[in-house]
């Protein structure tokens, strides 16, 4: 029997090869670098990310499906990959300072970040549920380790363990879901699932829906959506802050990428059956995230709950389930990545000056002592709250537009009510920074240069995406055409 060697298009997976290759290279060279110099591998990681980004950008809008249809690069996956790489780039800059100070195993740290990024990229390009699953595992396992990278810190250990147990459980649901979908359609290929969906699943619609629901459970966990959000506050709080910044943006984006591919593309018109579930998830996630965030006195925990709330906003796109909605959620996650990592960057600076304290009180007087740092934090928070002229506002506007276009006015009203609630807790940080006078002086801050670069990039991105978004994002063509 002749064996068909699948056609392999290395050009199509060049970004993945660069990311993964650099991760391996870092692991390889680490033993040859003296222990106290290993943070230099961060530069290698940066190089890898930049190289991958260039490779991704070069392949823009080239639609290639390779590896016998297992792997696809299209407009949507390219855009999502650029978002992941931007996030990783900023996080590597954020980590520079603390890998030096805390004497972390820097080589492992950076290669794990690259591996997690590789996993996300595979999820974005997966055209087959098995490839998606491999991507998910690469990402998740790397993140479990990253959460616990501070071995001496009990909280970090706790975070890692919680994340691992619950994450493994969620992964189980994903596999179960894939099995059901396979059972219903006889294939794991998303294109084939879509082809079959055109025949309206004469016999197996129910099993497909069960499979979809189980898959959704696993992904909702990664996205930090209610009611699978219980792990978020503890894990986010316990993990090193730079890792938290990474965890709150990258995996969310990856989960969204695959959700869009499965539910908006592959399930075809069956999506309408799932939409009410997304509606309920979206509304409950927004309320739970925002209402719980109000009562937080720890800024890191507050950002964790805000991350849950933002997952709720992003879910709106899956209720609307249109090509426009996919663009909207892609733009949203892009904006969320920069503003969220920006906020974490300021948090890292504040923490480093208050002995790791990330209570709200440690921000007191920041705006007076360091107006620029305070202003940057205020900008990120205003953007997270969705007030113009920032990225956060435009992202919300675009998302709401996609929802209203499909007639979901009530959902949009609920979302704006939630934005209003969120303004309260975001602005409370601004109040503490600028409006409360303090006797204890905020200690002088020396900007670690890498963090400073990350901050500048984030500030400029938040403003640029808010004021001139059309230069950075294609609003005139849908990213992923649904229903074929």
């Amino acid at each position: 029997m002749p064996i068909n060697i699948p056609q392999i298009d290395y050009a199509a997976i060049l970004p993945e090869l660069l990311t993964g290759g650099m991760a391996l290279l870092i692991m390889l060279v680490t033993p040859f670098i003296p222990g106290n110099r290993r943070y230099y591998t961060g530069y290698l990681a940066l190089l890898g990310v930049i190289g991958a980004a260039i490779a991704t950008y070069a392949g823009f809008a080239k639609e290639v499906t390779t590896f016998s249809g297992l792997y696809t690069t299209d407009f949507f996956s390219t855009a999502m990959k650029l978002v992941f790489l931007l996030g990783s780039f900023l996080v590597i800059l954020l980590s520079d300072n603390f890998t030096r100070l805390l004497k972390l195993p820097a080589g492992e740290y950076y290669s794990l970040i690259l591996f997690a990024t590789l996993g996300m990229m595979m999820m974005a390009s997966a055209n087959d549920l098995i490839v998606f699953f491999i991507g998910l595992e690469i990402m998740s396992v790397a993140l479990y380790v990253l959460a616990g990278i501070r071995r001496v810190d009990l909280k970090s250990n706790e975070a890692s363990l919680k994340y691992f147990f619950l994450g493994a459980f969620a992964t189980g649901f994903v596999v179960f879901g894939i099995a059901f979908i396979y059972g219903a359609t006889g294939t794991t290929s998303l294109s084939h699932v879509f082809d079959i969906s055109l025949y309206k699943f004469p016999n197996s619609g129910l099993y497909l829906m069960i499979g979809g629901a189980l898959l959704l459970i696993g992904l909702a966990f990664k996205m930090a959506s209610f009611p699978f959000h219980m792990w978020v506050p503890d894990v986010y709080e316990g993990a090193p802050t730079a890792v938290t910044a990474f965890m709150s943006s990258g995996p969310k984006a990856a989960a969204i990428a695959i959700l869009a591919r499965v539910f908006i593309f592959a399930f075809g018109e069956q999506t309408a059956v799932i939409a009410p579930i997304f509606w309920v998830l979206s509304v409950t996630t927004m309320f739970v995230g925002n209402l719980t965030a109000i009562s937080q006195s720890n800024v890191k925990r507050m950002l964790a709950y805000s991350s849950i709330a933002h997952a709720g906003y992003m879910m709106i796109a899956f209720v609307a389930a249109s090509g426009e909605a996919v663009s909207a959620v892609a733009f949203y996650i892009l904006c969320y990545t920069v503003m969220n990592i920006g906020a974490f960057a300021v948090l890292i600076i504040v923490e480093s000056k208050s002995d790791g304290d990330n209570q709200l009180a440690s921000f007191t007087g920041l705006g007076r002592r360091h107006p620029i740092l305070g202003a940057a934090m205020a900008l990120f928070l205003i953007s997270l709250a969705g007030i113009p002229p920032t990225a956060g506002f435009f992202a919300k506007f675009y998302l709401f537009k996609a929802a209203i276009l499909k007639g979901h006015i009530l959902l949009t009203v609920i979302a704006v009510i939630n934005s209003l609630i969120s303004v309260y807790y975001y602005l409370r940080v601004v109040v503490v920074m600028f409006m409360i006078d303090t006797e204890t002086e905020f200690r002088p801050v020396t900007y670690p240069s890498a963090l400073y670069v990350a901050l500048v990039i984030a500030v400029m991105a938040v403003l640029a995406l808010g004021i001139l978004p059309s230069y950075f994002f294609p609003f005139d063509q849908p990213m992923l055409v649904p229903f074929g």
Partner: protein
Amino acid sequence: MEQYILTIIIAIPILGILLMMPVSRKAESTLKGIAFATSFIAFVVSLYLYFMFDSSTAEMQFAVKIPWITSLGISYNIGIDGISLWLFILTTFLSWLSIWSSWNAIKDRLKGYLISLLLLEVGMLGVFMSLDLFLFYVFWELMLIPMYFLIGIWGGTNKIYATIKFVLFTLVGSLLMLVAIIVLYVIHYNSTGFYTFDLAQISALAISAKAQLWLFAAFALAFAIKVPMFPFHTWLPDAHVQAPTAGSVILAGVLLKMGTYGFLRFCIPLFPDAFVQYIPIISVLAIIGIIYGALVAMVQKDVKSLVAFSSVSHLGFVMIGITALNIQGMQGSIIQMVNHGISTGALFLIVGMIYERRHTRLIADLGGIFTSMPVWTTFFIIVALSSIGLPFTNGFVGEFLILLGTFKANVVYAVFAATGMVLAAAYMLWMLQRVVYGKITREENRNLTDINLREKLILIPLVILIFWIGIYPSTFFKPMEKSIESLLKTVEIAKGRTEIVRPEGVTFTADVSNIIEEEGD
């Protein structure tokens, strides 16, 4: 070149902000100089608008339309007409004066303060010139942040409560308005097949009566909170009392007019049918505001909160004039918006001046100031009388026209509204009597230094305007006539529609000429 004048005016304060950025925090006189110069230049250039303004047309003038995000139909679409002209100039004028007035009042973090004021000016100017709903919304929210900082950082003892209340109240309205804006945008897309936020194009849409009622409610809520109309006014006294003087001047002088302007510019042209239906509710709320604001003002212990509550009352007049839907009522309302900006702005400046000297605004702590500060007292009396609406002052012209218009539309409303003028005299004169006349009860009031040259120079232009509008208002009425007529025309058509047909849930045709012909038959 001439059509870019609006852009130039709004660019001047932005330029000021950029120039101030690299200047050291310690170089206070440089910072003050930049802020003063840019705000003054913006004012002078904006005066040019009046001379270039063509009073014979209701068209948008100095209009510019540049695509901003083409595929989403968002454009930088600006222009002004007779309704916005004076408010636009008032904004540059009061921004300049309020920057000048804070010369010595602000000692802490001056740089941030001046940047906030200039940013606020940008937002306000943007709102008055936007003809694109998206652009309008961006500017509308842009005002929020600097005001939040102005109250929250440089405010009084209870500043944090006041500023959060201000932000949350404003956002409740504006976020629901955002939803309504997007709904309008989608309705336009569904009926024409292309996206636009252009106000004129969206106004030309046929929106069903039922949808209009909802959309109007969302817009009206945002504007009613800003005006503020009873019962959405509770943020105003807190914000006013806690804000620094310049913040109060801008808040009363310009920000409140955003609400009434919003009704004129957006609510009426977009939803004329719904507006006609909502008139009874708006009128009654406006009258409650007039009487309630005046009564509460009467019992205030703090001069500043007295002025704040008097604003609720005065803005009630503006609203009732709008709902009269005739030329007198509208003219009165628009001129009253300007008047209120001048008179109440001046009152806050005057109260600020005594506060800088005495560090108190409580009526009980003052008294007999006349003997120590005669010049200040004279200004105070003139401005207070103009606020009451004494003939030959601006207040008289505005309130008289509003009452005349209201009388034509509905006698009962006019009778109730007129009590507001009587009550205004009561609270203002009583306050004057206790503050400036009488015996000196506190020794601190005996040796106060009278206002200096800078303070006089700030108040003189305001007093000139008070008399100018009071004695020769035609200068101000002439440019707005055509715009008001064309606005009234859209409402007249809607009025005819609601009176003749009034079907539930039936789509009205937007084609104006058709309906006129039908009526003619």
